[in-house]
């Protein structure tokens, strides 16, 4: 049994756990940055910028992530290669679209056709992070936009009365204060993000669910040293436990973060903490 759990295939599933964790660790701040940009754009006083921000939020939030993943990655990849193609091979004689083929000059390929496999995998990973960030950035933008509006107007007016410019009130007053309002929404988003990782496989990343399916499926003795029936249930049970533990850890960490952010804020929570401190 020990040997069964240490086959190369099982090693892959252990690695994929790390891949998923790494993806989450990179995606979360990236999505937050997208969200911040989207929310700031939506608040902008320049109408086209505001439309852009609102359009992004409304459009991406309206589409199921799964449908988005199914065509966006290929589209993104083609856009990147097309741009590189125009830049690198400007006098390429053939059309890029030949029937259903998408053909760019070899030097414009992303990554290069003869690049080692790990480059391909890292590129795929980067594309996946970017795609996740776009989708979850829209939801984060929605949350942050709400949080920015939730900061009491008086706080900003006070800043203005001290002679701060619009930019200054935004960065010095609004942004530091909005997090406490945004955190409940963002932590829920984090929970949803964790649970969206099974969709990674659609983006060409071999994640834990892919390996769980692969390992759990019926194996006949001709193709493996460890034949077994349909064991998907056990593998999925292990996944369930993994996700539950991960959720629990996140909940505890986010609770701590919340109580820290609440400190000194003009909210009921902050007030309660102050009272506890006084007595």
């Amino acid at each position, binding site marked *: 049994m020990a040997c069964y759990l240490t086959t190369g295939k099982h090693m892959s599933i252990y690695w994929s756990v790390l891949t998923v964790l790494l993806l989450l660790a990179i995606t979360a701040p990236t999505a937050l940055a997208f969200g911040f940009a989207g929310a700031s754009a939506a608040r902008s006083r320049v109408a086209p910028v505001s439309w852009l921000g609102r359009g992004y939020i409304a459009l991406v939030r309206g589409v*199921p992530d799964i*449908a988005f993943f199914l*065509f966006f990655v290929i589209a993104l990849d083609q856009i990147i290669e097309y741009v590189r193609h125009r830049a690198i091979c400007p006098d390429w004689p053939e059309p890029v679209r030949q029937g259903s083929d998408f053909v760019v000059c070899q030097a414009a390929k992303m990554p290069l056709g003869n690049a080692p496999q790990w480059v391909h995998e890292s590129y795929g990973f980067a594309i996946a992070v970017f795609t996740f960030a776009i989708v979850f950035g829209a939801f984060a933008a929605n949350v942050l936009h709400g949080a920015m509006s939730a900061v009491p107007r008086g706080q900003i007016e006070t800043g203005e009365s001290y002679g701060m410019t619009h930019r200054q009130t935004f960065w010095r007053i609004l942004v530091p204060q909005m997090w406490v309002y945004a955190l409940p*929404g963002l932590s829920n988003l984090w929970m949803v993000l964790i649970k969206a990782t099974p969709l990674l496989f659609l983006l060409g990343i071999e994640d834990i669910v892919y390996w769980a399916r692969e390992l759990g499926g019926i194996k006949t003795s001709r193709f493996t040293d460890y034949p077994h029936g349909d064991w998907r249930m056990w593998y*999925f049970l292990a996944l*369930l436990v993994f996700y539950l533990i991960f959720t629990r850890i996140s909940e505890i960490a986010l609770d701590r973060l919340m109580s820290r952010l609440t400190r000194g804020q003009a909210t009921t929570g902050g007030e309660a903490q102050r009272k506890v401190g006084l007595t």
Partner: protein
Amino acid sequence: MSACTQTITDYGLRAVGIGERLLPRDDFTLCQQFTLIGSGMIWNVYFGIVALIFGFMFATLLAVGKASRQRVFRKPAEWFIFLFRGSPLFIQFFFGYFLFLKLKTVFPIFAPFTAAWLGALVVLFLNTSAYSAEIFYGALKSIPKGDVEAADAYGLSGWSRFKRVIWPTMLRLAWPAYTNEAIFLFHATTLVFFSGFPAWQQRGDALYYASYFADKTFNPFIPYPILAGYFIILTLCVIGLFGFINRRLNSHLPSNTRQRLRIRPNLIR
């Protein structure tokens, strides 16, 4: 044009088994793609609405349970919410289907549960109940103390206090987050046939038909954007409807407070 009308009569209700039995197999037209994917939306809307209605009721119960001081009510509610919020939906579908199959062999009454229209609905219902319950629970915790004290002062207690003061206030506070939950639920319905329940006689949801066309035409850039378009419309409808209810819920408040509450997101899924 008339060809398209014919396509709509043939395939408009294909997802529920009415109309042409065979799906188009070659010479795919845009009209066919729009019609069939739209036909599949019937299932997404059905799953979404029914799960939402029943989920709403159960979620209220769970939220009250979780906020209860009595362990017997609190613990089961907490565990239920944790289990369903803590695991990916597709795992829930997998175990749901598996469980219904086992139950079916013992009790024949469970036979319809292995079909998506009921089995997947039950899973979606439990899932959305857990998420909504957490939102409602958060709202219950943030009901202004003054509201409850005022109710006490009027001599309201027990059920009538809950029905006339606590419950409406809870809904009012939870509504923005609950709107998000509704949107997510409609999106989640696309998973039913994708990684959950089998599709019988090629009756599937919008994603099923979209991937059918993507598979047959080898071109993902047409069917999936069509699907996305349908979902954007659906999402706008949900936002419109929930916005309408939100205005009703807040209609008694002065307009400036209303504004503030409307855009404040407490919790989203």
